[in-house]
């Protein structure tokens, strides 16, 4: 079998641009997912039964259905409801953020619940409100503990975002498919795509490690 390095070289600029888009969509999704997840996890810890119930439904639905199906729902089913086409970028971002939000909510909940309940009691017994105690005592401690699982979530999102290629959104995987359609060099291109994903996830894993250590020494 011939291994054509030239093809990879020629395809590289296009693939790297695609990788940029993969990073962009993952970062935006995890960023929005963080906001959603933080909100949902706090809602699920409050006393408001209806909100708590809705939060649980959201998390269960998202975690219990494939991301691919969620992307289809936003891209194909949503237009049928609102009577208007949905832009691929919008569909990709919203599906991925809503998905990420559910996982982040679980990460937050785990982080918050891992904090000894004596901390809440100490805060409350000093006269601070539930929210003040949450904000100044529980959350700062929880944040430190959830850095590693959040890093994992970002890595998972980098890889799972490849699924938005099915709606024609041109991130790294889709770029690879398009180049192969033109060159038939599937081995070279898929190998290059795989290595680019590996490089991205490797860098994120290392960054997470650095962040973890920094938070650990400064307390």
């Amino acid at each position, binding site marked *: 079998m011939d291994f054509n390095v030239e093809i990879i070289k020629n395809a590289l600029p296009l693939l790297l641009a695609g990788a940029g888009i993969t990073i962009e969509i993952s970062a935006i999704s995890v960023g929005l997912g963080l906001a959603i997840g933080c909100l949902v996890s706090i809602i699920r810890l409050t006393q408001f039964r209806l909100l708590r119930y809705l939060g649980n439904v959201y998390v269960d639905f998202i975690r219990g259905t494939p991301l691919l199906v969620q992307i289809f729902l936003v891209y194909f089913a949503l237009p049928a409801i609102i009577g208007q086409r949905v832009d691929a970028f919008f569909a990709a971002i919203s599906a991925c953020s809503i998905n990420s939000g559910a996982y982040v909510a679980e990460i937050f909940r785990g982080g918050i619940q891992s904090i000894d309940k004596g901390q809440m009691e100490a805060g409350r017994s000093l006269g*601070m409100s539930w929210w003040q105690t949450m904000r100044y005592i529980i959350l700062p401690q929880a944040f430190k503990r959830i850095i590693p699982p959040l890093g994992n979530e970002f890595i998972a999102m980098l890889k799972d975002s490849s699924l938005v290629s099915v709606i024609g959104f041109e991130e790294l995987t889709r770029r690879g498919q398009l180049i192969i359609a033109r060159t038939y060099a599937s081995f070279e291109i898929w190998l290059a795509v795989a290595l680019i994903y590996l490089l991205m996830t490797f860098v994120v894993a290392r960054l997470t490690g650095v962040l973890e250590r920094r938070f650990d020494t400064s307390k």
Partner: protein
Amino acid sequence: MKNDFIKITGLRKCFGDLEVLKGIDLNVAEQEVVVIIGPSGSGKSTLLRCINYLEEPSGGEVVVDGIPLNGEAHINEVRKEIGMVFQRFNLFPHMTVLENLILAPMKVRGLHKDEAKKLALELLDKVGLAEKADSYPESLSGGQQQRVAIARALCMKPKAMLFDEPTSALDPEMINEVLDVMRSLAKDGMTMVVVTHEMGFAREVGDRVLFVDGGHILEEGTPEEVFNHPKEERTQNFLSKIL
């Protein structure tokens, strides 16, 4: 006759089917030191925790400083006035000792940072830990942590203090440094309710000793009465085991 600072009538508390407190009546006067003793599982910690509503009573009434404790709105008002010290210290591990002390006075009392710091340093000095202001809790010994916890509670300038087995998690050689701080507080006229197994402390510092068993106050009186002439058989039994 001094005013009653804490008035408890007919207090009941259930956890599911288990009734832990079965109707407690207790008044604590201003500047009085009440010591609660009794076997584990007797409900003495629960009683203490009902006073500042860390446990919600299932029945009865708790009135603190004239404020009846029956809704969220009053709870924070009352908690501001009652400091609590826990068995396991519950210091905030992500903050320095000083930050532990000034947080609530700033957020709840609205003290300026400089005032709060000044007050905190005075109190740290009082518990003998002024030089530890910038340390993190994990670098302190158990006895030091508990003294910081007491200073943290005092920083809110409470009118009363609750102690929930404050020396039970300590190594024996550290118990006295904590008891000394509590002794000096009592001498300064602080109203205190103390759940403890330290009978020497109860005898020496307590104005009144309560023996709680099975969710009731079985016996109460001066330390002299309860320790030297217990009337109830269960009190005699309990004391014979631990003295």
